[in-house]
């Protein structure tokens, strides 16, 4: 049985599982002001999403946004395969800034499942362009640190 007691101004209820599992009669106004994930309700990219991690302010942030935007709007199959021109500057920038980790970054991700897939696809697209870039570099011997 549940029971309760009062200690000064503090009231304490010890509730059993049986009592607590009955449906609640409390009426609480649901007001969702959750931070949106990667995509805003209007379909745009949420640049405040924690999923962007430090890419949002790092030295390749502008390139990152271009790449991300292209992928976001891509209707190609596989998604992002039409984003080579937007991906390349980012890939180049990343290569020039060693120490920036492109995969798995983002200090706090809270994406919903679709967005997670969305994100994975993005990084796959990036990887493809990165390999292209590396192989072209090998032939050209472009001087980049």
């Amino acid at each position, binding site marked *: 049985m549940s029971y309760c007691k009062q200690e000064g101004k503090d009231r*304490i209820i010890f509730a059993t599982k049986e009592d607590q599992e009955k449906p609640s009669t409390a009426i609480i*106004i649901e007001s969702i002001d959750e931070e949106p994930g990667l995509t805003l309700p209007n379909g745009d990219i949420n640049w405040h999403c924690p999923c962007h991690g430090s890419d949002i302010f790092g030295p390749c942030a502008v390139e990152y946004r271009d790449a991300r935007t292209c992928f976001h709007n891509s209707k190609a199959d596989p998604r992002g395969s039409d984003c080579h021109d937007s991906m390349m500057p980012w890939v180049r920038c990343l290569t020039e800034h060693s120490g920036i980790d492109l995969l798995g970054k983002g200090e706090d991700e809270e994406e919903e499942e679709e967005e997670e897939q969305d994100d994975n696809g993005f990084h796959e697209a990036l990887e493809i362009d990165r390999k292209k870039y590396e192989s072209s570099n090998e032939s050209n011997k472009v001087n980049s640190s």
Partner: protein
Amino acid sequence: MKPPLSKLGDLAPGAWRDVGDLAPGAWRDVGNTQVQAVGQTESTKSTSTTSTPSTAQQKIGTTSSSSETVVKSAALQSNTAGSPEGSRSATSDTSESGVSSAPTTDTAGAASSQEGTQAAVTPPESDIPVHAPYLLIGGGTASFYAFKAIKANDPRAKVLVISEENHLPYMRPPLSKDLWFQTDPEKVEKLEYHPTQNFSVFHASNAYYVDPKKLPHLDKGGVGILHGRRVIYLDAMAKKVHLDDGSEITYDKCLIATGGRPKNLKVVENAGEEIAKRTILFRTIDDFQRLYKVCQETKTVTVVGGGFLGSELAVALGNSGLLNGIKVNQIFPESGVLAKVLPEYLSKWTTRRVEAENVNVIPNQSIETVSYENGQVALGLSSGITLKTDYIVVAVGLEPNTELAKTSGLEIDDVHGGYRVNAEMEARSNIWVAGDASCFYDIQLGRRRVEHYNHARVSGQLAGENMTGAAKPYTYQSSFWSDLGPKVAFEAIGMVDSSLPTVAVFAKSSDDTSAVKAVKDPESSEAVMTAPDEYDKGVVFYMKDKLVVGVLLWNLPYRLTTARQILKDGAENEDLSEVAKLFRIHQTVDQTSDDS
């Protein structure tokens, strides 16, 4: 004019900062002990058709927290702290700047882009830009989230951070928690707090920052940090700051995120040099490293203070004491730990838990004398007893860093301390304040100042957005959390102040005998202690004017979204045991099982 409603900012004397649920980091799944989520997402998936707030009244009970997944995250890469310059190559800068005729020398660069502004003053140090569109004073968590928000809204923003610390922006909570339970000394050395991942306390590695002296020439902007410098004067009319080295920087938008410094006790402060050598005020990475080292070389450490920081450190040192054979005392004037936060019965119960962590807790005592005797610190307590100890760790609260108020014509709140700002974190035109140093107007709960990690994050982000013109008020309540040993982990939101009346609902264990025993003698707190399971799990509502103004989730992870909704609603005239059902206190909710 609204009267101040809250003293929340003051209620955590050893205030530590928490990582919030706002954007769950990966780092709550701290291995061996109580796993709780900083990394949680409590997404309350609405089954209803509309997500518009207000009008429609919906029951959230059945659907709340239905998806609480932690997406593994964060390469908070390990980092070469304190070496802001260095790791970047010259080639990267020229390619990045897009300014083909990048300056060959720094001074020339500064001069060419800022001609006319230098007038007759001595030329600035070569590493200091003369102008910053966004100038952030302070390099902690509030500042970090501010510049992230600035860059999110203004992609090419040039942000200059002036930090007194010689470390890149980092999170402080692990310094009094996770790092002490890190078993691998190499990880401690690298400040990696996570038991299995290489997440470090640094928000981002050095590679993400740009050289401050090149900032004016980067057409894509970036964030540069000037380390080891202090702003001594802020001229709000001229939009200019003066640094301790005599240089001046003009700005367009300025953030003050100067945080605070640990308070000391007068009696300790006046006790002389030998005592000072054996006193640790705990705040920074350097403080952590010093105390960590001390714990390997000493026999007795006494923590002074019963707030968050003091209690967490006592538990941490108790654990460390088991390994290193040191004795740990915790002494404070209140009757139990976290007495300014927890209702008295819960404070006492928690004190037992702290004691169980190898801590000799000495409540109800203040320190009246401090002297140096035979190489030790002798503490004369109010009871007349003298306590001898090798080191003392003083954790008696934080003093917000508000020196700029005097020179800058900014207002200090006489009740809560800190710079007074409006609901948008704005102090004066083009000046915002976030984090510990900000006394802000919370539209729902009144004027407050909050010393918690998550608040630094929430307010920093808000200030950053507003610096780009967002004009948003503070509406998203920050949260905080603490862990005290394996049996106590909690999160809270709103005004969690033990002077308020509370209503708590705890999960009663199925074993009825102990509970009956307790109820037979309701006057005696001892009787309660015969049923130690009773306070294991539950929710505490803090009340003011019939409204719920604070929610404490006691060993109930992944429920902050529900708590936030209760807080927003106020639950006026509701039966709180019915409201408690929304938290499913008897169920185990975790990030993986909840969806199924």
